[in-house]
């Protein structure tokens, strides 16, 4: 069910608007309203997400990918694969999304904590 926002000034229902990175509500009758910034929720998500490596083969592609993400050398990356589950990255949603896509593209299984909604 949609929520009606009522104008504080005249009591009429307000209209939602979104233009580029501004959104808000405006009263079509009296012109009162309110505006704020609009960003994709992922850009304003301040939760630190933990990327846990669950399983990966020991191919060079996997080792290289994990090495880059965990910012470690190939030997350490290989050890991570052998010692799963292990955390390979912790950061904000935007970065985690990029990493998630990268790992999944090379069939590396991961788990993200807390639940990753993107």
């Amino acid at each position: 069910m949609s929520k009606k926002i009522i104008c504080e000034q005249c009591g009429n229902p307000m209209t939602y608007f979104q233009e580029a990175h501004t959104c808000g509500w405006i009263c079509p009758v009296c012109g009162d309203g309110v505006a704020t910034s609009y960003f994709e929720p992922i850009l304003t998500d301040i939760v630190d997400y933990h990327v846990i490596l669950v399983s990966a083969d020991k191919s060079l592609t996997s080792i290289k990918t994990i090495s880059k993400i965990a910012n470690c050398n190939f030997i350490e990356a290989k050890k991570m694969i052998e010692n799963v589950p292990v955390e390979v990255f912790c950061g904000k949603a935007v970065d985690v999304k990029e990493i998630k896509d990268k790992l999944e593209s090379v069939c590396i299984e991961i788990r993200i904590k807390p639940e990753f909604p993107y």
Partner: protein
Amino acid sequence: MGSGSKGLYSGTFGSKATPGSTDYMDSGDSFSKFIKRRKDIDTNGFYDIIAHGSPTTIQIQHNGVTIDIDHRTAAKLFLRDKNYHGGAIRLLSCSTGKLDSGFAQNLANKLNIPVQAPTDLLWAKPNGRHYVTGGKYVNGQLVEDHSKKGSMKTFYPQRRKNE
């Protein structure tokens, strides 16, 4: 305090100038139009920066293109702003003060000045009144969430741990 202007990087002309502030938004932006009508200009000597913001970045107009910048680029930009003569800055940019070590704190450290910023979304009314409060999406539409009260928080420059 000198007259305000559009930002150095802004490609938009015709925006109403506001004393003691620089506006990095598009002149047709509703938030920009509303916030420029605010009465509390130069509060306690804070220079106002108007831009869309997030906890870690602000957004500016550059040659008609919208770009996101971090505190380092923002610091360089502000220092090149002819209307800004140093001193404390107030960010009229949503959520830039949401994190303890987010955009506002990093900018304060970088410029070595106090920076005031909203801890959540900044909402502006057509009469210029503005306030900080949370937001939530209802059916894809952002509405005010008064259970998450915010405020304008001042961040002071902090020394690095190894200094």
